């Protein structure tokens, strides 16, 4: 099935619409955000943003699963070897000191409106990440990799013995 991508042009401020995404980075570390005060620092791991995005996407009706075909096929293996979990499959984030950008691969249920569901996913991901982490989300790019038909999970009868 052909891949469909949507990009939220209206959500990116003018200075960030140059080719390629521009996320303000604080060099080096893997931590997403760092707030310093006299009482100590608060920092977030990249896994935090990834997990929040994944949970937020799954909260929207019409989203059957996350990840592309290969990612879903490999999901069980990658989880067992510590490369990711079922929850965060299909989610890629780029995180800076104040901003984050998110790429999502979705499998939607057959019959839903792709534009409506992807827009709802985008809104919810932005709302959740900004609410939970305090990071500004510059973009949420969504790839719809497949559609799920009821009965896809139940293997049909084999034609051969």
């Amino acid at each position, binding site marked *: 099935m052909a891949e469909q991508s949507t990009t939220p042009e209206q959500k990116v401020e003018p200075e960030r619409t140059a080719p390629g995404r521009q996320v303000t980075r604080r060099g080096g570390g893997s*931590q997403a955000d760092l*707030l310093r005060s*006299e*009482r*100590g*620092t*608060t*920092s*977030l*791991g990249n*896994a*935090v943003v990834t*997990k*929040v995005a994944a*949970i937020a996407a799954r909260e929207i009706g019409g989203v059957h699963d996350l990840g592309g075909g290969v990612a879903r096929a490999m999901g069980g293996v990658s989880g067992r070897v510590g490369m990711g*979990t079922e*929850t965060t499959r299909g989610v890629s984030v780029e995180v800076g000191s104040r901003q984050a950008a998110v790429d999502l691969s979705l499998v939607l249920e057959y019959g839903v409106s792709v534009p409506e569901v992807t827009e709802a996913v985008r809104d919810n991901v932005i709302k*959740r990440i900004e*609410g*939970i*982490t*305090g990071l500004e989300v510059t973009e949420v790019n969504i790839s719809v990799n497949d559609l799920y038909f009821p009965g896809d999970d139940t293997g049909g009868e084999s034609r051969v013995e």
Partner: protein
Amino acid sequence: MTPAVSPASSRLGSLVVVPAPSVRVRLAQVALGAALSVDGVAAAGQGNRFAGAVTLDGAPLAGVSVIALREGRYELGLALIARPVALHALADRVRERVTVAAGVADLGDRLGPINIVFEDIADPAIVEVA
């Protein structure tokens, strides 16, 4: 380290010398316990990025580090796994709880900055089961 009980023996048997935990270890235990009691904190993280890891009876205390500063104060590091709530507000609540707990344990004047790392978000499905 000052022993809590002096070594001695008598007809009734011998006393086992149990070294009293150092301020550093006590502070780590108090801080970790206080942090984990805050609503919104799911578990302690690994704290792999921390210097100043604390060991107790030879085993590392996961999710906490204590680094000595000047004037007898200690800088705390807490690595936590949180539930999906506003994390910066949660960090403030953790600091408050740790500060109060340290005061109750008579360690308030030893407490320095409290650095908090949220390593991950607890999977909602796992949280519900737990």
